[in-house]
């Protein structure tokens, strides 16, 4: 039961951060899921599903403001498909600790991006 509460609390926190900064909240999902006992690739794959409610809610809101050009969005998403397939294949091929370290580097990149934006805002 405490694990369920931990998951919910962590998810809520990640969401608030995502809402505040517009970027980077979802990246916390992976370490959270690791802490909850998932393997690296399971955590990464699960985080892709976990981000969908947030993205759907935010997209709907932007749509209501008239900010979504759906055709362009569909084209972009379709264009990303080969990359998604290639990335998933690469991730499946890597040893777990290598994947974990690569992900840690990505986190550092996101941290740098957030810090950069904050200092130059």
């Amino acid at each position, binding site marked *: 039961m405490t694990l369920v509460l931990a998951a919910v609390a962590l998810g809520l926190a990640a969401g608030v951060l995502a809402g505040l900064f517009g970027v980077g909240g979802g990246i916390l999902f992976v370490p959270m899921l690791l802490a909850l006992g998932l393997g690296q690739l399971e955590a990464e794959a699960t985080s892709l599903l976990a981000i969908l409610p947030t993205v759907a809610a935010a997209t709907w809101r932007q749509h209501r403001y008239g900010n979504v050009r759906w055709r362009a969005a569909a084209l972009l998403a379709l264009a990303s498909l080969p990359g998604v*397939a290639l990335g998933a294949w690469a991730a499946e091929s890597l040893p777990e600790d290598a994947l974990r370290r690569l992900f840690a580097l990505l986190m550092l990149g996101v941290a740098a991006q957030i810090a950069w934006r904050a200092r130059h805002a």
Partner: protein
Amino acid sequence: MPLLLLVARFPHRPAMGTSLAAIGGTALAGVAAYSFTGRVDVLHAALVGIPAAAGAIAGSALQQRLPTRGLALGFAALLTAVAAMLLLG
């Protein structure tokens, strides 16, 4: 975003909204791809993801009221600390 802003010459807000929708499509594709190898844990995704959506709504409302600069730097520090743990652990 840069693609929409620089190449397609979108104004800023439509670029943000459109790229958000595109990201949703990309994430969905990722879920589909990983479903084949059984990597997606739907229960954990719901446990973490649904509260996150609620949190994101609260977070974007708070954005106007909180001094985000200090928080942003704090968040960057948190990400760095977690990354360090993953690298060294």
